[in-house]
C-alpha cells in the first residue's frame, strides 16, 4: 500500500512501535498510574498499518452511507467508497449488453439467429446520434431495427429513414370555430403513433373552453365526457407546434432532439437520456415521457413506421407529435387531419404559394399561442 494510496489518510502514528509503547493516560511509561496493569501484552496491541487502513476503510464505508443522503448530483455516484467488486460491476454495467453479445456471437452452441440478434444488439448499442449519421448509416440502423423486430416477434414491419425534402416546410392550421370536441383526432393519433396503451399517453389535447372568457387553460377541461359540443363552449386542440425556434431543442444536453429541414422537431429515441429538460422547456405542454415500458398489443401496432416517428419506444425516453413524419414525408396528411370529421385541421407546405395552408395564413385572421415568446410555432389558430 503505502505510496500507492489514492485517498487521504490520517496518520495516527500507530505504525510506529515506540509511540504506541509510550502512550498512556498518565504520560508515564513506567506503569505507576495503575492503568497499565490492565493492558494486554504489547505485542497483541500492535497492529500493522495495512490492518489499520482496512479498519478505517470499514468505518468510512459505514459513515459514507449517512453522508450520501446529503450528496447531490454526480457525487452520489462518484464520491462513493466501494469495494472492487462493486466498482467493477458499475464500470461494466453499460457494457453488459455488449459483453453478452460477444459471448453469444462467439459461442459455438448458440444458433445462427441468436448470433445475429447479438450482432444487431452490439451495433445498435454503439451506433451514433441519428442527426449526425450519413444516409447509409441511417438506412443501416433502420434495417437493423426491422431485422431485430423480425427475429424477436416473427413479424415484419416497414420502417423508413426518409429525409426532409427540399422546398418543404410543414405548417398546420386549426379552426377553433369548427372543432366540436369529438376527439376523433386523439384516437387516430394513438393508433397511428403506437403510444403506450397502459398510461393512455396522448399527444393531442382538446381543451373545452368557455365562450367569451379567452384562453384560460387552467380553467379549461381537456378530459371531458359528455355530449359535445357543449352549450356555451368552444374547443381548441394543442399538440407539438413544431416551433421554428424550439426551446426544447436548445436545452437538450445530448442533442437528441432537433429541428429538421422541413420544420419537424424530432427526437432520436435511442439517443435520448430521459432528463426531461425539453419537457420543462416547452411552453405548450407538447412533450410526453415514458414512465414505464410502452406497450401496444401486437395486432394494434402500426407497422408503417419511421425512425423519427412512430417506431416503438422504450422506457425513459421522450416522445411527442411528429406531424406523423412517416405519413407527411410521403405526401399523406397526418392521422389527426385525416380523422377530423369537421375539417378543422389543415396541413400543408408553407413554401408552396398555392397550398391551402398558405391561403389560410393569407386570407384568415390567424394567431398563434404565446407568440410573444418568440418560439415561432408553425401551428396557427383561426376562426371562420
Amino acid at each position, binding site marked *: 500500500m503505502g505510496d500507492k494510496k489514492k485517498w487521504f489518510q490520517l496518520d495516527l502514528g500507530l505504525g510506529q512501535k515506540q509511540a504506541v509503547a509510550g502512550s498512556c493516560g498518565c504520560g508515564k511509561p513506567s506503569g505507576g498510574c495503575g492503568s497499565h496493569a490492565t493492558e494486554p501484552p504489547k505485542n497483541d496491541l500492535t497492529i500493522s498499518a495495512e490492518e489499520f487502513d482496512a479498519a478505517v476503510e470499514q468505518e468510512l464505508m459505514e459513515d459514507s452511507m449517512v453522508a450520501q443522503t446529503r450528496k447531490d448530483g454526480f457525487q452520489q455516484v462518484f464520491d462513493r467508497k466501494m469495494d472492487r467488486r462493486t466498482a467493477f460491476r458499475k464500470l461494466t454495467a453499460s457494457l453488459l449488453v455488449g459483453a453478452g453479445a460477444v459471448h453469444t456471437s462467439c459461442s459455438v452452441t448458440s444458433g445462427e439467429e441468436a448470433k445475429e440478434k447479438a450482432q444487431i444488439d452490439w451495433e445498435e448499442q454503439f451506433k451514433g446520434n441519428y442527426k449526425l449519421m450519413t444516409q447509409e448509416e441511417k438506412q443501416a440502423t433502420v434495417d437493423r431495427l426491422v431485422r431485430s423486430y423480425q427475429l424477436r416477434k416473427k413479424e415484419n414491419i416497414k420502417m423508413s429513414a426518409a429525409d426532409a425534402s427540399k422546398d*418543404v416546410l410543414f405548417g398546420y392550421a386549426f379552426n377553433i370555430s369548427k372543432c366540436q370536441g369529438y376527439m376523433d383526432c*386523439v384516437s387516430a393519433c394513438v393508433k397511428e403513433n403506437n403510444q403506450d396503451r*397502459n398510461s393512455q399517453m396522448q399527444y393531442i389535447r382538446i381543451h373545452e373552453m368557455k365562450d367569451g372568457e379567452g384562453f384560460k387553460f387552467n380553467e379549461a377541461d381537456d*378530459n371531458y365526457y359528455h355530449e359535445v359540443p357543449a352549450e356555451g363552449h368552444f374547443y381548441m386542440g394543442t399538440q407539438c407546434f413544431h416551433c421554428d425556434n424550439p426551446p426544447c431543442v436548445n436545452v437538450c444536453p445530448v442533442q437528441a432532439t432537433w429541428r429538421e429541414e422541413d420544420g419537424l422537431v424530432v427526437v432520436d429515441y435511442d439517443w435520448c437520456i430521459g432528463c426531461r429538460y425539453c419537457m420543462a422547456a416547452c411552453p405548450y405542454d407538447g412533450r410526453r415521457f415514458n414512465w414505464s415500458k410502452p406497450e401496444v398489443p401486437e395486432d394494434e401496432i402500426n407497422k408503417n413506421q419511421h425512425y423519427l416517428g412512430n417506431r416503438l419506444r422504450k422506457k425513459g425516453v421522450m416522445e411527442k407529435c411528429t406531424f406523423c413524419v412517416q405519413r*407527411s414525408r410521403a*405526401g399523406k396528411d397526418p392521422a389527426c387531419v385525416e380523422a377530423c370529421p369537421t*375539417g378543422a385541421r389543415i396541413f400543408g407546405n408553407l413554401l408552396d404559394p398555392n*397550398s391551402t395552408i398558405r391561403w389560410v395564413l393569407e386570407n384568415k385572421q390567424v394567431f398563434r399561442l404565446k407568440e410573444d415568446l418568440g418560439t415561432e410555432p408553425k401551428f396557427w389558430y383561426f376562426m371562420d
Partner: protein
Amino acid sequence: MKKLGIVFSIIMLCGLFSCKHKEGEYHSLKEKIEEEGKHYQDPGISSEAYIGDINTIEITEGGHTFLIPERKGQIKSFACTECHSKSLAQLQKGPKEPKAHWDIKLNHANANAMNCATCHNGTNMDNLHSLTGNTIDFNQSYQLCAQCHSAQFEDWKGGAHGKNIGGWAEPRAAMTCINCHNPHRPQIGSKWPVRFNTEKENERK
C-alpha cells in the same frame, strides 16, 4: 490612416457576411417562408395514391383547381328519370302515402326561403337548378350551396372550410359540401366524444 481605413472596412465586410450563418438567417418565420418560398420548386411528392378508390372530377373555381368526389355514381337510384318518367304533378295524383323519399324531411332554412323546388327541377329531375333557373349538374352541387353560403364557398375554395382528402401534396382533393352536410338537413348534430382518458382521471383524483 489609409491602412487603418482598409482594415476597418475589411472587418465591417467580414461582419456583414458572418451574419449569414444558418441559424439566424431570418428574423421571423414569416420572413423565412417568404424568402424560401421565392424560388419554390415542386418537391415532386404526390398525394395521388391516397385518394384511394374515390372517383373524382376536376373543378376550377375562382383560380383554384382541385378534385372533388364524383356524385352521380354515389346516388343509388340515379338517374332519377328512371322513376320520374312522368311529371311530378302526375306522379302525385296516385295514392296519398308517398312511395319514395318518405324518409326525407327538409330541415334547411325556413319554408319561406326553401322547399324541394328551390334546388330540384320538377320538370327535369336528372339535374338541379339555380335560383334563376339555370341547370346545375348533380356533380357540381356546390354551385347550388354557394348561392346563399358565399362566405363558406370562398373558404372552401381556398381550403379553410371543408376537408382535404388523402394528402397535402399535389393533386389537391377536397370533400364537396354534400360529403359532410346532408343537403336536406345540413346541421351537424352533437355526439359523444370517441374516447375518455381514464388514466388522466385517476391521476387528477
